[in-house]
């Protein structure tokens, strides 16, 4: 009898890294569909581009680092990074935006830090921060939601726009492009206009931006599925959204003319996406339960601060990156009390 002496437990594993990542991808589907409904097929091109570049770069880096390809390419972690990145860039962004983003995400943020599990920073957000700093123009060319334009570009037009950088002559850029609600707000407030005035513009919806608010709802739906399936814990989403409401409500009550409403904050930009999918990245986030609450609260506060005082319309990416730096320390400071020990930091 040839017996294995592997240690306990002797039950089959209940999950795999690839399985976890796949669940995350499934949970993003409703939000992506909503994105297509409101802003056209551009997002699908962005996802396809980013995933292709991510997998190619992942394979190249694994080869360079002399690591096996199969387990690491099939763990879906690079795919999740690529999709999250793609969801943050404008639908008609040129193809090299995805390439640049993935170079920073996969090569620098992930593999130069040691690959899966070792990256200090959220790779998707590193990629996004790199492109928004390097190519602010390309990253600001957002489309108007379907109901506000004569016609969103179709598949062919989208492909031409992305791969040549030129819109087909039949489509006028001015007709289809639009500032994002967050952009409109910050420029509007800077021009001393009232929030109520700014919000009268058609790009705003019931509580957030038109279209954006529904995409956020569908992201939240997917996120709740992840919480229900225990893929993510409730701590980060509750902390991000809860803190956003908690901090923005008194400001809005005190100065409704210059501060957007709490719901406006939650439902614009990438906040809901960040709450469920980005700040919940396990590798670069906190792992203790209390630490996750602190991490989420930090992301929310920094996002609000950057939206109000910073140079970029949405601060989610930078907020997440800044909190990534603090995560190891937060984990250390929020260690749970061990069984049989008096205090949190009671030594042996």
């Amino acid at each position, binding site marked *: *009898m040839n*017996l*294995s*002496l*592997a*240690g*306990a*437990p*002797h*039950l*089959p*594993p*209940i*999950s*795999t*890294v690839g*399985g*976890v990542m796949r669940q995350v991808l499934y949970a993003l589907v409703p939000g992506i569909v909503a994105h297509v409904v409101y802003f056209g097929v551009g997002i699908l091109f962005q996802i396809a581009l980013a995933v292709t570049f991510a997998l190619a770069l992942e394979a190249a880096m694994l080869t360079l680092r002399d690591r*096996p390809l199969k*387990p690491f390419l099939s*763990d879906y*972690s690079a795919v999740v990074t690529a999709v999250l990145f793609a969801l943050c860039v404008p639908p008609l962004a040129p193809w090299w935006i995805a390439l640049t983003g993935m170079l920073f995400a996969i090569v620098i943020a992930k593999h130069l830090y040691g*690959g*899966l*599990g*070792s990256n200090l920073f959220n790779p998707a957000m590193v990629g996004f921060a790199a492109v928004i700093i390097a190519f602010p123009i390309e990253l600001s060319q957002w489309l108007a939601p379907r109901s506000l334009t004569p016609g969103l570009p179709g598949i062919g037009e989208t492909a031409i726009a992305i791969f040549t950088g030129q819109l087909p002559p039949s489509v006028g850029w001015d007709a289809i492009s639009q500032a994002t609600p967050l952009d409109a707000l910050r420029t509007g407030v800077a021009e001393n206009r009232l929030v109520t005035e700014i919000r009268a513009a058609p790009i705003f919806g019931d509580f957030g931006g038109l279209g954006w608010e529904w995409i956020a709802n569908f992201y939240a739906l997917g996120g709740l599925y992840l919480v229900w399936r225990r893929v993510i*814990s409730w701590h980060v989403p509750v902390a991000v959204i809860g803190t956003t409401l908690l901090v923005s409500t008194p400001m809005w009550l005190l100065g409704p003319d210059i501060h957007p409403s709490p719901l406006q904050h939650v439902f614009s930009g990438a906040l809901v996406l960040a709450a469920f999918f980005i700040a919940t990245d*396990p*590798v670069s*986030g*906190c*792992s*203790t*339960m209390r630490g*996750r609450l602190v991490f989420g609260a930090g992301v929310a506060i920094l996002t609000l601060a950057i939206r109000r005082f910073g140079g970029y319309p949405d601060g989610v990416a930078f907020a997440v990156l800044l909190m990534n730096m603090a995560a190891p320390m937060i*984990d250390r400071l929020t*260690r*749970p*009390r*061990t*069984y*049989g*020990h008096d205090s949190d930091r*009671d*030594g*042996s």
Partner: protein
Amino acid sequence: MAEFELGRHLYRFPGGLKLRHHKQIACRDPLTPAPLPERLWLPLAQHQGPAGECLVEPGDRVVGGQPLTRARSDREVPIHAPTSGTVEALRDGPVSWPPGGQARCIVLIPDGEDRFEPLDVPEDWTYESTDALIERLRAGGLAGLGGAVFPTAAKLRGEFPPIRALILNGSECEPYISCDEMLMRSRPEAIIEGARMLARATGADDVVIAIEDQMGEVRKRLNAAIRAVDAEAPIRVVQVTTIYPEGGEKQLIQVLTGQEVPHDGLPQDLGLVCLNVATAAAARDILIDGRPVIERIVTVSGPGIRHPRNFVVRLGTPIAGLIAAADGTTGAIDRLVLGGPMSGLPLASDRIPITKGSNCILALRPEDTAREQPVMPCINCGECIRVCPASLLPQMLYKHLVADDFDTARELNLFDCIECGCCAHVCPSHIPLVDHYRHGKGVLRERGIEDARAARAKARFEAREARLAEREAARREQREARERRLKDADRAQDEVRAAIERARARAQKDTGDAGDNDA
């Protein structure tokens, strides 16, 4: 000491896992004795701690119940002949711990007559002193039959506060293991009587038998047995929620009392003693039947066993015989496990014998463990933190241990890990976390032993230095004294010489005078 009312309110421990039980598959058949093998292999040490002194030699004929080793302290546990026969040899044989290791065994060839000679039993145990009771239990080879085989005598008496309550653990909590459930179903009266004896031996005036919430049948039978006797201390049956590892001693105490055993202490510090139900039944067998611990109930189960069931097994029976008695295996066996699937020990051979701590033998095929996927890097998902019943940070311990940073692992309370396996079970990266913790503890213990050895060597060296210095000082003292004496002696001699000179001078003068006179 904190106040609590045992088992009145049930508390929750952090973490843990709900697992599929797989228990009933081995409970369909009644308990039956396993066949006696050709040879019994009896490891001299069956428990944590030193082995007793061997009392037999090859060629000796023994009867069942005869002591084969003798315990010289409460930390040692004697073993007894499981049946009558001849001692063939004292030889090294495969054992379960360390994995793949060997240990000195008494090899006994049964003569088939199964003659038995009971130990001396008291006429009425209720008249015995507690010390006498404990002495008898010790002589009967009683040790924790739940799996840890801790010498029971050492648990019952020692330097600790008075014991208020006795907890009998009947919640096995690991999947597949059903030996305690079978025992509680078939011998509830023995457990209740043993509980009374152990309560008497500890001085506890409260006894709680903890069983799992799905053991309704067991509760009825135990309660019937409790009603049938007039117990000195109240005995209660408490059903606890089946969340692995609620049957762990520390977790069970937390569930029943809301208190935690101090990390540097024992349950006795809370006024509690926790023993397995099988230990209670064995105590009764020692004190009533004079039958020392020579057999136990063993679950033989797992998807690799054709006919899973529970056997009453004489100690020393090799596992292969039990598997054969369970109608063999269902396919190629990849793992044999002693204990449950969550924390059981992998066995290197089916020749390993059943000992006092062998509660369950699991046979698993490759498809039952499905562990062929590669180990991936830790992605810090925190699932291990969520399920850890000791509230440790398993992933952080792991990262420090793979970096050989053992001191930080110790600071993160590595030694509070109970090795329940929850973290490794939920790990999506399939990291064998418990193996890392065991290794880390081993390194730290080794280093602790090294440190102690170094400290002892240093103390020895310093003592020697001091001794040498003292001897040197004494010698110098002596030398100086002698020199002083010599000097004194010289001076005395000088004085003598001077006196002689003086005398001689006087004499010469006298002679001169006399000469003058003579002339």
